[in-house]
Every structure is written in C-alpha cells, then in structure tokens.
C-alpha cells in the first residue's frame, strides 16, 4: 500500500531536501575526489543533459521530431570556443550569445518546418546534423573554425577554483561544478516553464493540435518558439561541454552526437525533466561499459569498442520503445509509486459525503467507508 505524501507538506519538503541535497553532495564528491578523466566524463554528462533537455522540449513536449539537435550543440560549442580563444571574451558572457545564436538559428529552421509533416522534419533535421561537419570544414571558414582540426581553448585549462570554496578542487573539478550549477539553473527554468501555462499549452499542442488551436493556442507561434528555445538550450549545452572538455571539432555537431542525444532522450524518458540527466549518463557511460565487454562477446574484438557501444545504443533504443516507452524515469516513477505517492494538496472534503463526487485521482485515498468506486 503506497504511502501518500502531500505536496508542500513537511514530509514532502524533507524528501526533496534529501533528494536534491544528495545530488549536490554527490556532485561535490565527484569534483573533489575523482580523477580528472572521470570528472570530465561527468561534466560531459551534465552538458549533454542540458542538450537532451532542449531536445525534450521539442520532442517530448511539443511533439515535433528533431534528429539534428547536435547541430545546435556544435554551434554553441564553436561559439564559445571562438569567442573565448580568438576574441578573449570571458566564458560566462558567451553563454547568452550561445543561447541567442542557437535560438535564432533554431527559429529559422523551425519556422518553415511548420509547413511540413513530422517525418519530413525528421529528415530535414537529420540532414542538418549530417551537414554540420561538412559546413564546419568549409575552407573559407577555416580561419574562424579551425577547419577539420577544430579548436582548443587552452585558457579554460587555466581556470582555478576561487578561494572562498570550503573545499579543494582542481581546474577540472571547478569547471565541472560550474557546468553543474549552470545546468541546475537551466533545469530549474525548464521545470518551471513546463509546470506553467506555457508547458500546458505545449502539451495541449502535442496531443491535439486542432483542439489546442480552438482553445487559443496557435500552433505556429508556439511550435516555432519551442523549437527555438530548445535549440538555445542545446547550444548552451555545447558551450558547457567545451568548457569542460576544451576541444571542439566538426564532429561535435555531427550525426553521431545527434544519435547520442536521441538515444539519451529516449532512454532517460521523453517528456520528463529528470530523464535528461539519466540520458546524459547513459550517453557517456554506455561506451565505457561496453568497452569492458569487448573481449567477451563472440563477434566483437577489443578494438571494436565503439561499434559495440553503437550496437548497445541500438538495442537499448528498440528495447525502450517496446518495453519502456516512457524511458527509465517512467520506470523509476512506476516503481516508486508502489512505495510512495505525492499528491497535490486537496481542499477539505465536505461534511456530507454525497455532495462531493469522487474524482478518479483520489481513488487510492478515499476511505473505503464512502463506498466510492476505486478506479
């Protein structure tokens, strides 16, 4: 029998503090104790999570397909890299630029996309992801982009943690913290947006476009804006990634990353906020896992590790679609709901039981004596 906890109650707050606090502690622990290469991995997780969050806005919440968000990711990475290493901008100043740039390009792509059906949008965005490396390598632009070799931003590696931190972290650790904090802010923003009228409008749009239009939610503006915002998110994710791992190249925005983002989204959970983090974890750690399996499986040799990772992504994608279409987060929530349920605070029940109809959502909480139907 699941335990019911009212949202906003002290018990709920405690639960939240433990949860988020635990994550904060975990992050600090990683930053302070883990070796550099692993810290970088986790940074990548956070950066990718932001990008996956952006992708989620488009696919999960506004119902459009984008197979090419990696292009925006790469765009953001290049923006920050170029501004910092060639023009000496401070990193934080590049974030709004990245967001804006991604948003504008996203708007440009998203606007005409209104005319075409979902599958075509998939094709166009896929085309975008495949085109990105080629565009980045254009010889005319190579002064700016570094051509096929990309760019490295050495100044990031000289970042030092500020003195007022109560604990000791090296450069990688400090940058990891910055990425996490920025990511957390973005997650908070996204979370609030989703719960607001905007989020509901998007969901209405996703599920029933005609119905939404009739209610005053006009598809064109909302969908394009959703696409633009999500592109902006992806771009910021790219900027964060280049901060953590100060290298950007043409493939940063290419097909492989596009697939990774989709995979992360699907595995983590479409239309969930926390799924983005899980998605990021999946993207980064799956190849690590499969590397160690390389020698054991009959067909794959040690050196085939990236292939095995791809195969694993593919199998996971198909498995999730069949078994867990809501992703891992859905599954976790499902399991959790057997133990604990969070209910919104409800108005006090009226004294005469016959007055108040029993809404289905209360099915688990109404005392049996009322004789209401259990849904």
């Amino acid at each position, binding site marked *: 029998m699941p335990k019911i906890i009212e949202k906003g109650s002290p018990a709920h707050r405690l639960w939240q503090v433990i949860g988020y606090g635990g994550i904060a502690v975990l992050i600090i622990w990683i930053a302070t104790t883990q070796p550099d290469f692993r810290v970088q991995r986790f940074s990548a997780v956070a950066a990718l999570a932001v990008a996956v969050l952006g992708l989620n806005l488009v696919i999960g919440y506004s119902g459009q397909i984008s197979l090419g968000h990696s292009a925006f990711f790469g765009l953001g990475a290049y923006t920050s890299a170029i501004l910092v290493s060639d023009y000496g901008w401070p990193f934080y100043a590049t974030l709004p630029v990245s967001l804006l740039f991604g948003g504008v390009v996203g708007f440009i792509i998203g606007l005409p996309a209104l005319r075409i059906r979902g599958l075509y949008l*998939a094709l166009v965005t896929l085309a975008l992801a495949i085109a990105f490396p080629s565009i980045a390598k254009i010889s005319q632009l190579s002064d700016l982009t570094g051509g096929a070799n990309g760019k490295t931003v050495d100044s990031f590696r000289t970042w030092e943690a500020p003195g007022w931190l109560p604990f000791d972290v090296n450069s990688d650790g400090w940058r990891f913290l910055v990425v996490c904090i920025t990511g957390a802010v973005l997650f908070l923003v996204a979370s609030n947006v989703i719960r607001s009228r905007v989020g509901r409008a998007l969901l209405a749009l996703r599920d029933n476009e005609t119905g939404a239009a009739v209610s005053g939610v006009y598809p064109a503006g909302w969908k394009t804006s959703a696409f633009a915002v999500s592109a902006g998110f992806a771009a910021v994710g790219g900027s964060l990634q280049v901060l953590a791992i100060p290298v950007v190249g043409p493939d940063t925005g290419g097909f492989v990353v596009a697939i990774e983002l989709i995979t992360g989204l699907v595995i983590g959970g479409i239309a969930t906020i926390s799924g983005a983090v899980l998605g990021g974890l999946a993207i980064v750690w799956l190849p690590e896992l499969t590397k160690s399996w390389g020698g054991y499986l009959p067909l794959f040799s040690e050196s085939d590790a990236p292939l095995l990772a791809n195969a694993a992504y593919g199998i996971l994608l198909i498995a999730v*679609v069949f078994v867990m279409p809501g992703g891992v987060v859905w599954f976790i929530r499902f399991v959790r709901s057997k133990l604990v349920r969070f209910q919104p605070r409800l108005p006090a029940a009226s004294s005469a039981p016959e007055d108040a109809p029993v809404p289905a959502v209360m099915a688990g909480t109404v005392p049996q004596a009322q004789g209401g139907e259990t849904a």
Partner: protein
Amino acid sequence: MHLVLAFPGVNDGFFNTSFVLQLLANGFANGAIYALMALTVVIIYRTTGHLNFAQGEMATMGCFLVFAASVERGIPYWLAIPGVMVISLLFGAIIERGLVRPIERRSGLGVVILTLGLFLILNAFTAAIWGTESVTATKPFPSSPGDQFVILDGPPRFFVRYSTIGIWLVLGLVVLALWALLQRTKLGLAYRAVASNRESSLLVGIPVGRMLMLGWGLSAAIGTLAAVLTAQKAGTMDFNLMATVLLYGFAAAALGGFDSVKGAVVGGVIVGLAEALIPQFFSFIGTELSLVMALFVILIVLLVRPQGLFGTKRVERV
C-alpha cells in the same frame, strides 16, 4: 572570410565536350543508384507513411552477404544476387511484421526511433562480422580496365564502362518490373489500394498486413541490389557503404515526391547529375559539400513544394 563568386570558379575544362559527356555519364550512373534507393523509400512510404532510416544498413549487409557468397566462396553472381535478394525480402518482411507493426499503432515517433536503433545495430554487426577494413567490392559486371566503350578519343577520353551500362540496365529492369507489378497485376493493384486507402482495403478483403510486409521486403531486396551496384562502382566496400547513398536516396525521393515511383527515378537522375555538375560550376564546393548539396535539396524541396515534382498533395501538411 570572403565569398567566391560562382562564375569565376567555373572549371576551365568544362567547355570540352568529352569532359562534359563523361561528367554526364558519371552523373547518370550515380543517379541510377540513387533512383534505386529512392524507389526503396517510396515503396515503403506509399503504404505505410514511414521512412526506414535503416534501409542503407540493410542494403549494406545484403551486399556483404553477396560478397561472402561470390567473392569469398566463388558462387556465381547470377545465383548469389537473386538469392540474397530473396533473403533480404524475407528479412524486410519480418522486420515489418515483428518490429514495426506492433509499434506503429502506438506511436509514429516510435517507428523512427526503431529504425534508428536498427541502423545502429546493423551497422555494428556488419562491421563486427566483416571487419572495418575495406574489401574488394562485389563486381557482377566485368570491370577490368579494358571493359568499356570508348566513344570519344582524348584527351580527355569519353568512355562508358560496361558496368555503367549494366547499372542503367538494372535500373531499367527494376523500374519495368515494378511498373508491371503495380499496374498490371492483381497483387500490384491491391498494393496500390492499400497505399490509397487502408481502411477500405480491409473492407474489400485485402490482407493489408501481408501487403505491408511485401512493401518492406521489396524495398530490402532492391536496396541490396543498389548496394551491390554501388560497391561495383566504387571498387571497394566497407561497412559504411550505403550511409550516404541512403541520404541521396532520400533527397531524390523528396525531389520526386515521396509517393511517386516515377518521381523516384526522375529525382534520382537529377540528384546524380547535380552532384556531378554543380562542383564544376562552384569550385569551392568540394566533395564534402556535395553531400550538403543533397541535404539542401531536401530542405528546399520540402519547404517550397513538399510533394515534390510528382507526388500527390496528400503528402503535405494540411
């Protein structure tokens, strides 16, 4: 950064007849292959409204099976190719029945994800089984240096290889066979009926499920054929053989119209010619960017005229 104007970049050699003809011949040959891939896209799209993003990998795997049979074991091509095409047909049908059908009822996005997952799996498995190195390609047509018709002597020469003619012949045969099937047989009529109105097809007693399986199967078989020809043309093959070809196939299908067989052929030829000719006019477009060109074709067509040249209006968003 400075923009290069188009015309100063025109290749000087362009004004030589032989050179131009060679370009055209090459473009046509590539175009034939793109047309075949576009056909695979159209066949599935017409009845199901889906795009199979794994089509390229299925084709590559089929090509490697032919490789294993013919290059490695010496089975003659006229036996191996049809044999593997039958296997591909079955494989495509099974994929439709086993993976796509259960999902498509639930969600369209699910099918996209499914085919992406399939892409990854097949790509990895092809590489796992046959390695990541290039191998000598399957060559059903004779392809030693002398096997060609020299039409204009040089320099530069204009010659047409037997294999190029072979590719055109194959395209012609496939299109003819497909046309005959669709327009002249009961099965073909039933297939077109399913493409036109699925619910009414049920009411008329057509086994719709079997038609869908047939569609995927045919696509897979034609895909394998396209892959074998691609390999012949390229001379070597590896596990990424068809990745870009599929993209060109999508571009061709978009251009011609996603539900038009005629469009697939015309679209394929146009894309092939464009790929051959455009770099000549704009010399800053190297081979890298010809891929981007294909992608812009997709983009522009879908934005300006989503139904392509020959597709039906239904293809567009209402």
